[in-house]
């Protein structure tokens, strides 16, 4: 990879718990990953491993009993764990979109499809406001950077206070000085931001008035000419143009909705626009949900098992659609699923989750052709294979109870390769390549050498060697 793509989301040590009557459910326990511009990160793992909770945390839509105990979610310099609800609302609508497993639950059953698609556009449709925001974006970014900086310093201070070695006092004084400095900088940045916004506002309104005058002149000119009849249409058009300069009009929202419905492959969009969700098939409903997510032109699209309820043909259509959009719009995608075939199709990189942690992380090729964690092996072997009738190797036992997560490696209980240390200490992430790492003691230099199960080794060899697959046979 010569030029690494821009990192647009960085999740660091994300830790999420849920308060329940039986105690705290430790759903996500320190998850770290990056999302890059125009790339797809797939998150895989058994049911209950924390895939949905992680993505809901990014969207800021955790259930009421959920808390983020620790960690940061950095998007465009901003830590989303610190963002207030009002701000989040904006992000959710505009920058980060999400598609859920069950399309029916995210559609309103008694509202016409068209209205559901245009609603968001009209709601977020004030263009002047948007322009002001754009113009003051730079100074806002500086401000968030400074705020993050302060946050980090404060975290560092608490850490130092808790630790019991080194020269605590001296270190603390130094941090305190830094904090003071950071606070001062924030004050300045805030003032700058305010000023920038005021200036931007003035400019934007001035531009609008110029435009207004220009259009009005044109209208006047048209009215003066004798050819009244045919000019009326032109005048209406000019008026619409002027309103569009200011905000998204109903007509415009309709046009864009029809365009996006076409883009996601809904036939006869004009007729479909006035129908209700129950008049759509499962696959079509899911397309509508995608269409709604797309109207805001998000930068990141989170897909939580968007095709689990659909059959292969429709699944294939939806996956192709997401891949096309990714290319056309340079969209970043977080794709959650437990279907490894789908992962192979979609992912640029893969995070394998188990019991609230990422146990292996790598590029798609690294995970499928060189898996290193026994849990990844287990996932790969439990899948039926088109070319063999060997007994499937189900993973023995069940995932741990997340009310009482195990002290050591959470997978140890079910792992035939587990060593004594696995039951005692959690393995760190061992680096295998620049992009590949896995949390298993098997990668420790002192560990005995263990090969992946023969069944996967054979399968990988076959995958890398064969050129002819049944589908190719199907292609004349």
């Amino acid at each position, binding site marked *: 990879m010569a030029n690494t793509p821009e990192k647009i989301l960085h999740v660091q040590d994300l830790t999420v718990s849920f308060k329940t009557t039986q105690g705290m459910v430790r759903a996500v326990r320190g998850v770290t990953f990056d999302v890059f511009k125009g790339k797809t990160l797939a998150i895989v793992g058994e049911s209950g491993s924390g895939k949905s909770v992680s993505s809901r945390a990014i969207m800021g839509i955790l259930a009421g009993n959920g808390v983020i105990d620790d960690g940061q979610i950095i998007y465009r310099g901003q830590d989303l764990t610190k963002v207030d609800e009002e701000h989040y609302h904006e992000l959710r609508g505009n920058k980060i979109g999400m598609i859920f497993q069950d399309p029916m639950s995210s559609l309103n059953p008694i509202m016409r499809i068209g209205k559901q698609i245009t609603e968001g556009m009209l709601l977020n449709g004030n263009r002047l406001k948007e322009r002001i925001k754009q113009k003051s974006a730079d100074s806002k970014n500086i401000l968030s950077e400074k705020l993050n900086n302060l946050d980090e310093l404060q975290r560092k201070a608490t850490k130092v206070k808790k630790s019991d070695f080194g020269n605590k006092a001296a270190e603390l004084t130094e941090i305190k000085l830094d904090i003071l400095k950071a606070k001062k900088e924030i004050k300045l940045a805030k003032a700058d931001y305010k000023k920038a916004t005021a200036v931007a506002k003035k400019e934007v309104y001035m531009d609008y008035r110029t435009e207004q005058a220009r259009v009005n002149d044109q209208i006047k000119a048209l009215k003066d000419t004798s050819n009244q009849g045919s000019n009326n249409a032109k005048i209406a058009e000019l008026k619409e143009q002027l309103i569009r300069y200011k905000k998204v009009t109903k007509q415009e929202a309709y046009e864009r909705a029809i365009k996006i419905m076409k883009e996601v492959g809904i036939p006869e969009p004009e007729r479909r626009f006035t129908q209700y969700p129950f008049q759509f098939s499962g696959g079509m409903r899911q397309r509508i949900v995608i269409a709604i997510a797309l109207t805001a032109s998000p930068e990141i699209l989170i897909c939580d098992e968007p095709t689990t309820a659909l*059959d*292969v043909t*429709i699944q294939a259509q939806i996956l192709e659609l997401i891949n096309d959009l990714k290319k056309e719009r340079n969209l970043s995608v977080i794709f959650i699923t437990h*279907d*490894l075939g789908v992962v192979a199709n979609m992912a640029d990189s893969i995070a394998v989750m188990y019991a609230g942690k990422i146990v292996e992380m790598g590029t*798609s090729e690294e995970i499928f052709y060189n898996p290193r964690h026994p849990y990844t092996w287990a996932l790969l072997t439990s899948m039926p*294979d088109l070319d063999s009738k060997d007994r499937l190797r189900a993973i023995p036992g069940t995932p741990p109870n997340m009310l009482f997560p195990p002290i050591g490696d959470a997978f140890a209980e079910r792992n035939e390769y587990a060593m004594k240390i696995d039951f005692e200490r959690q393995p760190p992430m061992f680096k295998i390549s620049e992009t590949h790492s896995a949390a298993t003691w098997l990668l420790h230099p002192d560990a005995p050498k263990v090969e992946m199960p023969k069944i996967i080794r054979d399968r990988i060899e076959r995958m890398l060697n064969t050129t002819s697959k*049944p*589908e190719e046979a199907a292609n004349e």
Partner: protein
Amino acid sequence: MNNRENEMPILEVKNLKKYFKSGRGKTKLVVKAIDDVSFNIYKGEVFGLVGESGCGKTTTGRTIIKLYDPTDGEIFFMGQRIGAGHQGLNDNISEKRKEVRVAVQQLKMEYNARISASPSAEDQASLKKELAEKISVLQKEKQEFIRKNKLQISERKRTVDQDTPLMRKMQMIFQDPIASLDPRMTVKEIIAEGLRIAGVKNEKEIITRVNKVLETVGLLPEHASRYPHEFSGGQRQRIGIARALVVNPEFIIADEPVSALDVSIQAQVINLLNDLRHDIGITIMFIAHDLSVIKYFSDRIGVMYYGNLVELATADELFLNPLHPYTRSLLSAVPLPDPRYEKTRKRIVYKPWEVHNYENNPPRLHEIKEGHFVQANDEEIESYMKILK
């Protein structure tokens, strides 16, 4: 497994149709969920049924197990007819009535013209007589035809009742493990229900059999007193399987038993079903849309497309020689856990209106190779023969 023609099938489905009608007059809508489907299932085999959502797989299963009445066609189970519809016979009758009505009208017109053209009263009388005779022949023929068809209809109406011992040899595992288990009943009650319906009253026997079946599906006797929500998805699906197994069925219809489960639990359930068929010799009709699972688990596979069976062959043959364009499109849509292959996989899209020309030459289910059936017309059969491996 290939040639079992001489064997008696455990299940025989003949020209089965199931139409759902709704609305009246202008809003009348007929959904042809199954439209003339025929296949056999032989003892001890796993018969897979695939096809996209809404093509009629569940309806086929539910009609076989008598949850729906067939619109037309017949179903035989262990040699006995368990279901039959007579829409076709009804249609025959009304068609005949119409045909005769039209013929009579034509005769009348013809004769009336001749009668008014003929000069003598004598001629007219003989023509009238001739007409009356001709009409009466037609009417008699019609009555005979209707009598025969009505006889067949009443014969078809005599099928096996739902709650007979024979029907208990057939059980169904439902698509949604959560929705199909009553949340207020304990696992024991859920499983024992079938036994009670079958007339087992001895409480001791019930407990023994429930415990035994729990063991078969890999659950523990102490699970019997728990409620469904206390189990994982895979365990719930096992409860559904236990409920079907407890009455010792010969034949199980499993409607997407693993579609909602993640890979590791899916593997548990498939292994369990595989053991049952090898150890007890149960015959299974397995409905699914995951082709990797279907290929792994089935001996023969039927491919459905909008109420029709478009291809039927052994699993290996179907994957080696997919002939019907819909089958090819289905196979080309399966994602495999192999990123390099996925990068080059080309999906074939099935557009029936482009690939078939059935206007003058309609298709039929044709056995193109021993045990391999495909829906095609003569022209297509010829072209399929060429690519057959």
